């Protein structure tokens, strides 16, 4: 039906474009631009509505400060350098936790994925421990590490460990056995097989694990920093709350969102770079 309708409509459309080709071009450009701008219409309207509600006094600044105030608070914090110090501290914690937990997850996943004996020995234990929510450990972690830096890094490490471990393990197990057989018949050594076939084959799964971990990493960081901190974005917002500086609280929330987005963009860039061969990641 649709095909038929299209074929009948085509000649008519052709005639029309011939007659007013300049206008049609202009109209097409306008439609293209409109389509690109359309998704931003609602957020923009909300922002304007929010600003208007604050300016007209319908919205108390105790509840939600005006966007302009948030922007002002952000620029003040940025100019004083306070913002960067806190962002640096928070990002440092997150990345250190990711490096430790993710590194261990990757190493252990590679080990249990590749060596049957290691799987038998370790996997059941890891699967059991996986069921403990990282946040349930908080009382214990405070007893162990106090409310120090190490407590936060530990919590992040524990939570990012599992997604990376699981996805690495499954990635390695799901490498096409036919490709491994092919590699063997082409005389690849054990290490050659690992480097040329197994690791690249597991990579897309490992990167999925990394993306999961990055999401978890920020959530755990926020919780850990909200509980107790002497620096970092969490400290900034909790401190601001004490003094009812809702605009600064909002700056903190937006900073977390921004860092989360940045981490996701980074993971996607890795996927685009390393999985260029994959039809699913080609533009």
């Amino acid at each position: 039906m649709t095909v038929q309708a299209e074929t009948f409509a085509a000649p008519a459309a052709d005639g029309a474009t011939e007659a007013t080709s300049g206008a049609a071009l202009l109209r097409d450009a306008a439609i293209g631009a409109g389509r690109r701008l359309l998704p931003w219409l609602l957020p923009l309207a909300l922002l304007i509505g929010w600003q208007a509600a604050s300016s007209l006094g319908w919205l108390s600044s105790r509840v939600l400060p005006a966007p302009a105030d948030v922007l002002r608070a952000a620029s003040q914090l940025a100019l004083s350098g306070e913002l960067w110090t806190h962002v640096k501290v928070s990002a440092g914690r997150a990345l250190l936790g990711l490096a430790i937990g993710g590194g261990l997850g990757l190493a252990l996943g590679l080990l249990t994925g590749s060596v049957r004996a290691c799987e038998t020995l370790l996997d059941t234990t890891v699967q059991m421990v996986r069921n403990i929510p990282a946040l349930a450990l908080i009382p214990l972690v405070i007893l162990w590490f106090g409310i120090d830096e190490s407590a936060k890094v530990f919590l992040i490490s524990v939570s990012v460990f599992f997604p990376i471990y699981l996805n690495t393990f499954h990635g390695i197990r799901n490498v096409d056995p036919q490709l491994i057989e092919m590699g063997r018949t082409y005389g690849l050594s054990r290490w050659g097989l690992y480097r040329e076939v197994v690791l690249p084959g597991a990579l897309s799964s490992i990167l999925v694990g990394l993306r999961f971990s990055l999401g978890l990493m920020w959530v755990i960081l926020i919780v850990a920093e909200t509980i107790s901190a002497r620096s970092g974005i969490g400290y900034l917002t909790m401190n601001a709350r004490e003094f009812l500086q809702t605009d600064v609280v909002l700056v903190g929330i937006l900073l977390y969102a921004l860092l989360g987005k940045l981490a996701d963009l980074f993971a996607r860039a890795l996927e685009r770079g390393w999985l260029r061969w994959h039809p699913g990641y080609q533009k």
Partner: protein
Amino acid sequence: MTTGTPHASRTGGVTVQAQQLDKRYGPREVLRRLQLTVAPGEFVAIVGRSGCGKSTLLRLVAGLEHASAGRLDIDGEPARGLRTGTRIMFQEARLLPWKRVLDNVMLGLPAQARPRAREVLAQVGLAEREHEWPARLSGGQRQRVALARALVHQPSLLLLDEPLGALDALTRIEMHRLIEGLWQRHGFTALLVTHDVQEAVALADRVILIEEGRIALDVPVDLPRPRSQGDAAFAALEKRILDRVLRQSARAA
């Protein structure tokens, strides 16, 4: 493309000799006291219904499986595991999707082999696609890359495990020409497993039918190359072999 002309880059083939070869998977006997001799440089096609043991025989010769009993000699030496001079083309191309075409051909080879890999890629007609990802190639092109990957090692024995089974009829005829030409040029021994009798007659010096783990028919193909499928002698031979395969099927059913 004249038959049997010696060529500068000929690597020469090896003999394959199976004596009383047995292969069992548990209680199931796949090959029973199989006898087969393939001369150096000979092109032998193995046909048979699915499950007759033809692929198992190929996997034994490849060194991917071990015989339960009997003797298997390649180049006069007992076959023991994988052999560097043996290369296999599988039913699927089995290209590494994360390597570009040329790097797939160079799998397991040092960087110095690059010019040779390019040359072989040109021989299968894909020189200009060397930087492409395998996902971008058609099924026939992928099998041509797999053929180049096998040939770059200058094998003395090429095993073909239904490599054209998934291709369309036209691409298949093209691939027959290509494989025949490269076989004549390089001079390796070739063992082709196929369910397509026409393909077997088009390519092989000898067609072997395996039934119930044994060789039931061994027919030389004395037709001049390149062979044309429209030829009367070709058609007669194809019919003869096909009738024999079907007779067995009818009896089994």
